[in-house]
């Protein structure tokens, strides 16, 4: 039996009909986004619409259909274990915002 009104993925159960404001804030926090109140309201609406659409797909009976993880031929190509030089340091550091002692320097982060 499939519960109506829920998208049920393997990972999470998200109530689809109305995403709460707290959920929008939580998602924004996970994505490290700072949203204004207006944005929160707008994204709540938009994300809810997406989830509503997913909920419609959930109405289909997929009982005997294996999940599709990819539409490509399902076999990963494998590489021989042979090391090769990567990029020179200066090349890789070119776009870094800040570097020091041949390392990328980042601002302090909350632990």
């Amino acid at each position, binding site marked *: 039996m499939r519960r109506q009104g829920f998208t049920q993925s393997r990972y999470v159960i998200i109530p689809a009909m109305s995403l709460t404001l707290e959920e929008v804030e939580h998602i924004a926090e996970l994505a490290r986004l700072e949203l204004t109140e207006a944005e929160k309201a707008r994204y709540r609406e938009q994300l809810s619409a997406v989830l509503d659409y997913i909920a419609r797909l959930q109405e289909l009976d997929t009982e005997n259909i294996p999940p599709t*993880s990819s539409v490509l031929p399902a076999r*990963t190509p494998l*590489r021989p274990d042979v090391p090769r030089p990567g990029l020179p340091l200066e090349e890789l550091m070119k776009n870094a915002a800040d570097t020091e002692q041949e390392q990328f320097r980042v601002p302090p982060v909350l632990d």
Partner: protein
Amino acid sequence: MTEYEAVIGLETHIQLNTQSKIFCSCKADSWNDPPNTNICPVCTGLPGVLPVTNRVVVEKAALLAAAMHAEIQPVSFFDRKNYFYPDLPKGYQISQYDRPLARGGYLDVPLPDGTTRQVTIEKLHIEEDAGKTKNDNGRRLIDFNRCGVPLIEMVTGPDLRSADEAAQYLIRLRQLLRWLGVSEADMEKAHLRCDANVSIRMVGADYLNPKTEIKNVNSIVAVKEAVQTEIERQIREVEAGKRIEAWTLEWDEDAGVLRKMRSKETEADYRYFREPDLLPIHISEAWLAHILQELPELPLERRARFISQYGLPEYDADILTGERSLSDYFEAAVALYPSDPKRVSNWLLNDLMRMLNESGKLASELRLTPDYLVEIIRLVDAGTVNTTTGKSLLDKVEASGKRPGEIVNAEGLAQVSDTGAIRQAAQQIVSANPEQVQSYRKGKTTLIGWFVGQLMRETRGKADPQLARSILEELLSE
């Protein structure tokens, strides 16, 4: 006083010893390399790149899974574990979640009291490592060398019952990893990392109490000390009527104390989803059979066989199977000297182990091959050289790479069993040391050792000591 027992599970991260990284061709091991020298657009997460899986990572992971008696899955998937941290350049770690490479499994851990603890494996999957963050006076510097280094995450069930058992598990795991050749398993170099989950309960209870997680334990000794410290703290808390809270603790090795870590509010919200850039790993029966050709007899099996087949004491068998090339060495030597395996074992335990410890070499790297060792034992057996000379031959063969017999001839080391020659040397010593002879004759017969020593020096250690002693005794009693 109530009896408590500890309930411990270990989460280990094992660095595989491949040449290249898991999803790109950068060199995998950066030990002693300067920061950011083994990196490329793939492992630093630049836009537009695609990961390609290293075949040997899958093979080594499958080999380890087989050795842990886990069920290798014909199809497994990669997933993204999403979180933000400066040393994770892509913003996600490629890992495995609900369809890992292997399921189930266990490791048998022999305990000092002779019993065996079977430790179940709850999780075994492949993932990539993150980079390293260095805090330097409030500045945070990032080295991406370690990004994309292949890891196996392996989590045990709550099956260990003491700090000592936790240490024993790690010792046996490290032995197995080296035995299989899948990891250097050096905890000091972070090839093997360990977090410990610890709780306590009444002895005999079948429920689990809230646990704490200890992070940052970087040696087997540290795991033992940290877990013991935490068990004692939990017992004190419970005895004082307090509740155990699910803290994350950090072990401060220098101070020998556990510190509570600040927990991240959003912890465990990793929003796993299938890695869209990678296709599933298919392990065909043919490929698996090919991989399992490399699966050797495992350490505990070999240990049991050494006891039953060669009649070795458990102590000998345990040491000889501590490391694979030593046990191979022993078997090669016994094949050449099948009459007395214990005698071969004695030479290995007493002398070869010393040479290995001093040189830091593996048994397979010695110039003193099993063939040469057996030749030395036979030279001693035949009385061609005495035991002391035999033992000194070990180092001489190792230093020169020459056959023992060749060295004996070239240096004239053969034991002097010629009664005439020994008698002549003995007479010289007796006439040159009248004082000692007098005290010997007055009853201080322990001086015989001194006389034998003089004679051995005179003959540069080559005299048959038994013969020398009896000739000296004869001369001195005249």
